[in-house]
C-alpha cells in the first residue's frame, strides 16, 4: 500500500492527473473503511479528525518528503469533505424516502448535530468561494473538513501561518454570512 502511494505521490507531484485521482479515491475508500470500523468499535475517538489522522498515517509512506506529506493532508481533507457530503446526500435522500439506505442515526453523539442540509449548504457556499478565491476555500477544507490546525494547514498549503489565520477569518466571516443570507446559492 505504502509503496503504491509513494509512486502515486511522485506522479501527482509531476502533475499526473490520473495519479491524483487514484490517490483521492484511495483516501476516500480508506476514510470510509476507518469510519465503519470506528463505528463498530464505538471508539472513544470517534471524530472526523481522528479518522483523517488515521487515514493519513495509514496511507502515507514513511519515506515521503515532508512537503508531499503536508500536501497529502489537503488531499485527505478533500476526501473527507467528499465522504461527509455523500453521507449527507444519502441522508437527505433517505428523508425524502427516495433511497433505500441503511441509515443508523446516532443522535446522542452530539447534543445538537449539524443538520445534513446545513452541511450541504456549506458545501455549496464553499464551492462558490472556491470559484473566486480557491486559496481561501482550501484553507476552509483543511481546517474544517480535515481537522488540521493552523500550522498543519499552513504546511499543507505552503502558506505562512499569518496568512492562514487571516484567510480563515475572512472565509469564516463570509461563509457564515452567506449561509445566513442565502447568498451562497446566488
Amino acid at each position, binding site marked *: 500500500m505504502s509503496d503504491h502511494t509513494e509512486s502515486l505521490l511522485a506522479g501527482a507531484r509531476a502533475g499526473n492527473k490520473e495519479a491524483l485521482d487514484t490517490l483521492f479515491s484511495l483516501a476516500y475508500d480508506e476514510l470510509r473503511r476507518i469510519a465503519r470500523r470506528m463505528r463498530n468499535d464505538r471508539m*472513544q475517538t470517534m471524530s472526523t479528525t481522528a479518522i483523517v489522522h488515521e487515514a493519513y498515517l495509514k496511507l502515507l509512506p514513511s519515506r515521503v518528503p515532508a512537503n508531499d506529506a503536508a500536501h497529502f493532508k489537503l488531499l485527505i481533507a478533500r476526501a473527507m469533505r467528499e465522504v*461527509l457530503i455523500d453521507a449527507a446526500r444519502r441522508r437527505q435522500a433517505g428523508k425524502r424516502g427516495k433511497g433505500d439506505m441503511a441509515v443508523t442515526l446516532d443522535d446522542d453523539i452530539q447534543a445538537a448535530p449539524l443538520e445534513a442540509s*446545513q452541511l450541504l449548504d456549506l458545501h455549496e457556499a464553499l464551492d462558490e468561494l472556491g470559484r473566486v478565491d480557491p486559496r481561501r476555500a482550501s484553507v476552509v477544507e483543511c481546517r474544517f473538513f480535515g481537522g488540521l490546525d493552523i500550522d498543519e494547514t499552513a504546511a499543507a498549503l505552503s502558506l505562512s501561518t499569518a496568512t492562514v489565520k487571516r484567510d480563515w*477569518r475572512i472565509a469564516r466571516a463570509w461563509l457564515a454570512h452567506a449561509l445566513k443570507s442565502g447568498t451562497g446559492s446566488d
Partner: protein
Amino acid sequence: MNADLWKSATEIFERALDMLPRERAAFVDASTSGRDDLAAIVKGMLAEDESDSTLLDDGIESVAHLAFDEPSDALKPGDTVGDFEIISEIGSGGMGIVYAARDSKLGRIAALKLLSSSVNDGRSSDQLIAEAQAASALDHPNVATIYQVGEASDGRRFIAMARYDGETLRDRIRQGPLPPREAFDIARQIASGLAAAHSAGLIHRDVKPENIFLTQQGLAKLLDFGIATLTTADQSESNRGTVLYMSPEQVSRQFAGPASDVWSLGIVLFEMLTGRTPFAGSTPAEVMSAIQDASTIRLPVEIRKLPYAAVEAVRRSVEKNPQKRYRNAAEFLTALDKAARLWTRPRTIRILAAAAVVVIVGGWLGYQQLRSNGATPAPVALAVLPVAGDSSDKDAVALATTLSDEIAARVVGLRRMRLTRPADPAHVTPAPGLHLLRLSVQQNGQYPRISVSLEDAESHKILMSSNRILNRGELREIGRDFVIGTLDAIGRPASDRERAAIGRSFPANSQAYDAFLHGNELLAIRTPASVESAMVSFRRATQEDSMFAAAYARQAYAYTLLVDWGWKPSASFPGDPLTEALSLADRATRLDSTSADAWLARAYILVGKDPLHFTGAVEAFQYAIALDPYNAEAFHQYGQTLMALGRYTEALAAYRRVLDLEPDRAMTLVPMAAINRRLGKRLESLSYLDSAIAAFPQVAYARATRSLLRAQLGDIAGARNDAEAAAKIASSYRVPQLAALASARWSSGERSSALKALSDAEEIVAATPSPTEAFWICAAEVALGRSDRAKEYLRRASPRGAVLWFMFQAEEFESFLKDSEMAAIIREADPRKPIG
C-alpha cells in the same frame, strides 16, 4: 458573486478589522456607498466576525456522525451472550461496547464488554482467559473483579465483570483537572493494584483514564487486565485506541515490562493534575515520535508548583529511559505515598489547590498600618479558588492560573490578609471577612476570555466581577485592574502610590511573562549554569517589557547569587557584577517601591558589598520580609546572613520559617545542620542532613557535608560511603565532594587515592578561594596532615569576612587554628567584634 466584488469586499473587510469598532460603520458606509451588494456582504461579514458561534466554529465534529453512517453490529436488549442476557448498553470502551447484562445462572448483574471483532487477532481465547482471570485472582481492591471470559456465538469474545456505581476517570477528567490530593490518591490506589499484579508477573499494558473506574465509595479500580495485550499485537494494523499513554518501549516495540505500566500511570497522573497529556493535540504518529525521542517531558507549571516529593514522583514516572524510571509499581507506590503524605497536613501558599490552606500572617508593617488607622478593622481573608475553565486553549488556562497566583500574592501582600487556597469551593467554611476570589477562562469564539469575581463568603454577595478578553498583550492591564478592583471591593482601596506600583508586578505581555516564569524555574534549580540561564531569561523579560519591576529584581538577585558562589559571570554580562546588580535592584525599586524582591536583592547585594559586617543587609532583609512575609527565599537568605553573623538562634528561627512556608525545601536543612554542629549538637546535625539527603539524593554537597560529620562521629565507613556517592554525582562544581573524598579515603588508609582526589580538588580551586572553598580545601588538607598547604589556602582566602569566620568555627580546625597567624586571620573576620 464575481471576483471583483469579492476582492473589494475582502479589502474593505480587512481594513475595517484594523479600526476601532466605533470607526468601522462610517468607514464601511463611505467605502461601499452606492453599492448595495458590496455593503451587504461587508456588513454581513463584520457581523459574523464578531459572532462566537458560526457554523464553522461548531466544527466538523458536529457532523461527524454522518461519517459513521454505516451499519453496526451492536447487540440489542434480550440478545444473549454466553450465560448473559443483554439488558442495555451502558457505554463504550476503547475496545468495544459495554452492556449491562444479567447472568442467567446466578442472577447477578454484570458489566459485559463485548470485544469488537477486529480485536480478535488470532490469539487463543485460552490466553485471554488465563490473563484476565489471573488478574481477577489477585483479589485486590483496586483491580476490577472479572466474573467470566468467553466467546459469543459469532466468535466475538466477551468479558463479564463486576458492575460498579461511579464513573470512569475519563469522565472525571472531562470536568477539569483534579485537586492534587485527589489525583495522588487515585494514582496511589492504581499503583497499589498494579503492584500486586506486577509481583504476580502480570503487566497491564493499557493503563489509561478509560480503564480506571472510580466507584462512589471512593475506590479506584483498574479495568481490562489481560485485554490490553490483544491490542498491542494489532497496532501495526491501525493505531487503534490511543497512543497517548504508551511508553517509549511500547512504541518502539521493545520489551514492555512493569516499568511500562509505571509510565502509563505517570501520564495518567500528569493528565489528572493538568487536564491534558504531555503529547496531546497531535496526530498519533507525532505523538509516537514525541514519546520516542530522547527529550525529557517538560512538566508544566501546575505540576512544578507542587511540593518537591510530588514533582519528583511525576518526573521519575515519566522518565523516557526505563532504567531511570521507577522499575515497577511498588517503587512508584512508595514515592506516591510520600507525596500523598504532603497533603495530610497544612501546606503553603506556593502549593496549588490541595486541602484548604491557611498561612499565618504577621509582619510588623501590617500591624503598624492597622494601628495607624486608629480603628481595628475586621480581619479580612481571601480564599483563592482554582481557576475554572472550559477553554480548549490550555495555554490560556495555565496563563490564568499564574495570573491568579500573582493577583492573590499582590492583594494579600498589600493588605496583610490571610490567604487560603481551597481545592473546592464546597470546602470553604464561610467566616466573617472571608472573601472568595474566583478566576475562570471561557472560550468564546476565537478568543479566550478571563473573568474574575469576588464574593463575600458569608452573604454570597458578589462584590466585584469583571471580564476581559485574555489578550496576551494586556496582562499588565488585566492584572492591575483585577487587583485594584479587588482592593476596592474589599473596602481597602489602593493609594495612588500603590496604584502606580501594582501594575509593575505584572508583565506587559505573555512573552515577558514566559521569560520571567522560565527564569524562576531556572533560578530554583540553583546551579551556576541554571542561574546564569535564569539571568538571561530575566533580561529577556525586561527587554520584552522595560517596566517589569519583578524581572529586574530577580535578575539582580540571580546576579548576586552568582557572585556569592564565587562564580564569574561570562562575557555576556560585562561590568562589575555587584554594581550591575545594584543598579538593577534600584531600577526595580523605582518602578515598584513595594517590591519585596527588590529589597531582597538589595539586602543580598549589601551582604556582598560588605562581607565583613553586612552593613544594612539585616535591615534590608527585614524590610523585604515585612513586604512579603511568604517569601521563603528571603527567609532563607536572612537565615544565611544571621548564621554568618553568629546569630544562631535567630538564624534557626528564620530557617524554620522557610520550612513552614515550603516544607519541601529540604536544602534549608543543610545550614540548619551546620548551625547545630557549631552549637555542638552533632546528632541533631546528623538527622538534619539525613532528611536533606533523603529528599535530595542528588545534591552532592549535602552528602559531602554528611561525610565530614560522620568522620567526626567516628563512622569511617559511613563517611566513605557518602564521599564516594557524592563524587559519583555529576556536578559542575566538584570541590566539596573531592575534598570529602580525599578525607574519607585517607581515613580508610587509602592514601594514594586520597592524594589523587585532593590534587583533583586543588586543580579547580580558585587562586583566591572563596570562604566556602577555603573551608573545604583546608578541611581536606588538615585531614591529610598537610597543615602548611591549608595555611596557604587560608592566607589567600577572600573575602575575609563573616562567612569565613563562620566556616572556620568548625571542629575540624580546632588545632589548626592554634597557629597564631591563622587564628589572627579568623579573628579579624569575626563580625561580632566592634567596628573600628
